[in-house]
């Protein structure tokens, strides 16, 4: 199955993050130690364990929607942080990925379940406006030094290389898991800002320049 290795990687990273979070009491960045690296290697092997004729990843694949490139990028970011490494994304870059996930999910999922006649998913097979729009967004992000642009770029390249089972570009940009995680992260961020500074929560964040966050 094309894309199974990406799902295996995602599952391994997810398992590693859960165990690291328990070990380190949720603190980031984590500590880089031999044990952490061994743990990561072990976690990446777990999805390959055969159970009842299928590997664990193949069992999960039966129910999983696959994994989009932004979800993989965010998981890789979190894993590197948990190993004590430098962040791949700054907080506002992560924020831009969450916004991207939520916007794409809101556009895509209600329509895919039959809400209205317009079917945006069908655009992902064609030479469509979404490639142009997201290509421009990626270029603007990269010009501004926002690393989320690399994720959009990677999604286009992954689609061209056929890295996932799907041949539809949307599946490289968003999946239901990423949509849900993005929704939760945005909601938690808004809640945290509102608790910290109810009056100026929204306005001051918006005015802060991107390169001021790090």
């Amino acid at each position, binding site marked *: 199955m094309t894309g199974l290795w990406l799902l295996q990687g995602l599952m391994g990273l997810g398992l590693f993050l859960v165990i690291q979070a328990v070990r380190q009491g949720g603190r980031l960045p984590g500590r880089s130690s031999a044990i952490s690296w061994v743990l990561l290697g072990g976690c990446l092997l777990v999805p390959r364990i055969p159970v009842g004729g299928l590997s664990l990843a193949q069992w999960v694949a039966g129910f999983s*929607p696959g994994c989009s490139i932004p979800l993989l990028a965010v998981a890789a970011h979190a894993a590197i942080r948990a190993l004590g490494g430098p962040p791949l994304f700054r907080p506002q870059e992560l924020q831009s990925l969450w916004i991207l996930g939520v916007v794409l999910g809101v556009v895509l999922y209600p329509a895919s*379940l*039959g809400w209205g006649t317009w*079917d945006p998913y069908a655009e992902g097979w064609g030479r469509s406006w979404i490639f142009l729009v997201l290509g421009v967004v*990626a270029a603007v992000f990269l010009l501004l030094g926002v690393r989320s642009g690399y994720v959009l770029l990677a999604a286009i390249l992954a689609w061209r290389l056929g890295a996932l089972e799907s041949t539809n570009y949307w599946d490289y940009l968003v999946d*239901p898991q990423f949509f849900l995680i993005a929704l939760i992260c945005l909601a938690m961020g808004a809640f945290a800002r509102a608790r910290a500074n109810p009056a100026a929560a929204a306005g001051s964040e918006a005015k802060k320049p991107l390169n001021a966050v790090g």
Partner: protein
Amino acid sequence: MKTPSVVAVVAAVLAMGLHLWPGTGKGIRGRTVPPATWAVPAPVQIPAAPAFVREELLEPGPGVASVHVASLAEFAPGRLAACWYGGSKEGARDVGIYLTVRDGAPGSHWSPPTAVVFAQTAERELQRYVKKVGNPLLFSDGQGQLQLLFVSIAAGGWSGSSLNLRRSPDAGKTWSPSRRLVLSPFYNVSELVKNAPIPVEGGGWCVPIYHEMIGKFPELLWLGVPDALTTAVRSRPFGGRTAFQPALVPLGARRALLLCRTAGDRTELFGSRTEDGGVHWSSPALVGLPNSGSGIAAIRMSDGRILLAFNDTQSGRDNLRLAVSADEGVTWRRAATVASEPGADYSSPYLLQTRDGRFHLVFTWKRLAIRHVEFNTAWLDASMKEGTP
């Protein structure tokens, strides 16, 4: 601008160029589907012949107690293949997809059915957990090759279905491994198939498929169409919860009628039309025939009329009737009743017209067997004269 940014923008432009460059990658040709041109032969008048009809029950398969959803294909002149799903009960883990073939020679019989896919087969080939399989659709280009679309489910009921494709180069003796088609962004579920595909001019197929999770609506699967950017793409005639499980009837190269089973409170058949190769479809409208929420079949006859098989009732499935339209589905005349018994289940009809001009109807007979009715135009027309208008 910093150098890394310049490099990044150049990379972005290259990536976009890779996408847009014609002739690269996965068979990019130039445009998307729809629109497409359906391969519709010009209407021909069938020479006069005596009325003919023959009925038979197809064996369900070894140890099979319940069968459903049959389809037919003419894989070589006069040679037929039929398939259905069967097992201890609908949706059970032991349900398999069975295939039988009939030679073209006069007096030939259907072969004993053989299982071509079980859940375990699909699981092994798709490399993922599969709880059950169902709804097989068999079709052929008539050159000996068979293609089989079927659904697989990992969790839940039929609305959790995904579509898979297998090919046989030798009329069902051997099969390629199943390939899963990713057609929905939401867990790739609720993609089902039942009715006959239509060949597309230049190659490939337009398969009427449908969605039934939350929304219930028809879709079109464009399979192997040369102009498509990928080998399997999907489009949607309309959304919502009005009608689904479509039968596609080409009326011309760019014109078609979609007849759908009701998905709501209205116990009537719905129809929708396109005039531009499937890009735009009219809002679903009532056709003037009843529908009890059961599947239908419809084909374009070689003389240009439309033949429909349906349960002629607003509740239950205890009869199965034919109807014919000579004016592209505007009005209908009822023809023969092919099965009728109070309380019985006659459902999931499938129609095919073979190259010799004869019609073949298969349908689920009381969930115990598949019934095959073979008839010609003379018998159909005679039954219309006798039947209710």
